[in-house]
């Protein structure tokens, strides 16, 4: 057995813990540092009544195969009490390749749904009234194109763009930092993001044009403090670009939303969400001059940590996910995705997804944690950790500023190196047995039961390839050419907003890959220098 000599008492991210926290530990001024829930600086939550007023949105991420398979999964989840939709796209879609592109071979419909054109989007949302659901779409480099497709499906259903509710991820900065699904170099990518922010501020008042995401930064192996700091730094960068475009900060800031990871170190995660709200509100007010109280509110989605799931004894993942989900709720999340226990092996089966959703329902209806706002506020330990994470975040902001800002720091591989370092440190601690992972380096089982997993039918890829090729043969080719020519022309000029030409090209069924190719021609592509 491990003795107290070789056990680590630091958080999973390496923050040292005291053996005891007392009234002397924190140095918290209630009015200045906490405030009531719904009051500046929103440390205790963005709404006065929190979950008494309204529960978080239970939003399970889904997508695989072709649009019709995913449409069935959407309807299944809505029937089982889910309250919002969340779309996962396949790798070719995320990277801006049509399903019949050579680089798409073997990847179509594997990690999400394949969407090549407006025609696929029509199938994906068939029978789902877009005026009544809110939809989240996890896509970044080609986000503007997918938003255009969605808007066109809305029009077909008679739902105007001003009534569409949902979120599209669009967070390209964290792609360069962590998830690595980039197409274009950072500057034109940021121009496209800013075009969307401007377009949504003007025409889609209920839509969240960016979900500023720490999730993937954490999944890439970062610490909690890095997730917090890099995500907020990215958020400030989007704000600065939009202000530089001439937008009033209060015209778009209320529609910025966030997306965080819920990892296993229970109190550290809760502290992270609380610090995030306080930093965002403070900086938005003091540095960017936001006046609308809604511009100061950090509202966020949370997903439990995929990286914490193990392939060994996979049922244990149900327990991990429940604890992580509880941290997200006690941290005041606005929506939540709970991972399924089989996801270290494959995409989840329908049964596994239902169990993950049930986990949220138990927290919401059986545990009583929703009965009061911020039940952990004032805990000596939680407040001290909140202060510590905040301090570490401001340290990182200084370092990033010294490098010339986020885009410059990306080009210097700053974030990539910091994350690789943290992830290697954690792995070394696990391998030395100083961090215990149940079932992996302690309490292993000899015989692992075979789990039934979701299999993607390889025939789906062929079907999708035929579908996009048939579409190209059937549409008005001249109209597509003209629309793509206009997109190229406007892409070359910084004073044009590209949303208009993208919507026009979508309407005539130009494919996502064709639009991305048009932009590649003008802007070039990005390739990072690999570091490890």
């Amino acid at each position, binding site marked *: 057995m491990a003795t107290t000599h070789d056990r680590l008492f630091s958080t999973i991210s390496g923050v040292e813990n005291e053996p005891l926290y007392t009234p002397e530990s924190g140095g918290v001024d209630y009015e200045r540092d906490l405030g009531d829930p719904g009051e500046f600086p929103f440390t205790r939550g963005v709404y006065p009544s929190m979950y008494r007023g309204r529960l978080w949105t239970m939003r399970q991420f889904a997508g695989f195969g072709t649009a019709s398979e995913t449409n069935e999964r959407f309807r299944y989840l809505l029937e089982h009490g889910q309250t919002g939709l969340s779309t996962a796209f396949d790798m070719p879609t995320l990277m801006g390749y049509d399903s019949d592109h050579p680089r798409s071979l073997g*990847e179509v419909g594997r990690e999400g749904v394949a969407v090549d054109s407006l025609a696929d989007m029509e199938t994906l949302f068939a029978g789902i009234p877009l005026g009544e659901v809110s939809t989240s779409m996890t896509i970044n480099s080609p986000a503007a194109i997918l938003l255009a497709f969605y808007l066109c499906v809305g029009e077909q259903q008679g739902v105007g763009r001003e009534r569409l509710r949902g979120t599209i991820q669009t967070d390209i900065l964290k792609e360069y930092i962590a998830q*690595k*699904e980039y197409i274009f170099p950072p500057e034109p990518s940021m121009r496209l993001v800013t075009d969307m922010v401007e377009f949504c501020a003007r025409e889609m008042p209920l839509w969240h044009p960016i979900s500023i995401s720490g999730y993937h930064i954490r999944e*890439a192996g970062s610490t909690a403090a890095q997730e917090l700091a890099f995500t907020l730094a990215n958020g400030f960068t989007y704000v600065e670009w939009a202000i530089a475009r001439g937008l009033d900060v209060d015209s778009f800031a209320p529609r910025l939303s966030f997306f965080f990871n819920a990892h296993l170190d229970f109190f550290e995660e809760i502290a992270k969400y609380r610090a995030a709200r306080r930093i965002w509100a403070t900086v938005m007010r003091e540095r960017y001059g936001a006046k609308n109280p809604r511009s100061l509110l950090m509202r966020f989605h949370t997903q439990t940590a995929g990286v914490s799931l193990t*392939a060994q004894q996979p049922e244990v993942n149900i327990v991990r996910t429940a604890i992580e989900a509880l941290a997200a709720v006690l941290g005041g999340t606005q929506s939540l995705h709970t991972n399924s226990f089989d996801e270290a092996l494959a995409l989840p089966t329908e049964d596994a997804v239902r169990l993950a959703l049930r986990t949220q329902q138990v927290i919401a209806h059986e545990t009583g944690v929703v009965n009061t706002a911020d039940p952990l506020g004032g805990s000596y330990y939680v407040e001290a950790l909140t202060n510590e994470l905040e301090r570490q975040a401001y340290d990182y902001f200084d370092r990033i500023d010294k490098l010339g800002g986020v885009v410059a720091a990306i080009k210097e591989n700053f974030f990539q190196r910091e994350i*690789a370092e943290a*992830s290697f440190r954690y792995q070394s601690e696990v391998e030395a047995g100083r961090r215990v992972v149940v079932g992996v380096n302690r309490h292993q089982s000899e015989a692992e039961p075979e789990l039934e997993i979701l299999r993607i039918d390889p025939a789906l890829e062929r079907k999708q390839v035929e579908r996009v090729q048939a579409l190209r043969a059937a549409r008005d080719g001249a109209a597509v050419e003209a629309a793509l020519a206009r997109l190229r022309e406007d892409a070359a000029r910084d004073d044009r907003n590209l949303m208009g030409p993208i919507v026009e090209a979508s309407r005539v069924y130009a494919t996502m890959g064709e639009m991305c190719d048009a932009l590649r021609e003008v802007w070039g592509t990005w390739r990072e220098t690999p570091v490890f």
Partner: protein
Amino acid sequence: MAGKIRVVIAKPGLDGHDRGAKIIARALRDAGMEVIYTGLHQTPEQIVETVIQEDADAVGISILSGAHMTLVPRILELLRGQGAEDVLVVVGGTIPSDDVAELKRQGVAEVFTPGAPTAGIVDFLQARVPV
């Protein structure tokens, strides 16, 4: 010639999950091997070209996109086409057990799934690569 084991760590496919690849690359380097990391989004052709150019003893293919049954056999085929079937091929990632068996049948020396300790991977390469 006594020398260091030369390993290419390769990321085929379109996904950007590079945490594992980087950890393995570093652990192998720390164990005294020469490690060449290809970076992301590599085609099978690019990977095999790197293996040949670098005169590698082994290639570690990291894949978490679900496309392993398309991309790994293609890499094996291209290696054979180049007369490089003596290069030891190992795979790491989210690979279901049925697929593990099939990949091994096709010539993959070992498949490491999530949770595999890096020390085990180091030992495996040291045992299987003659230097």
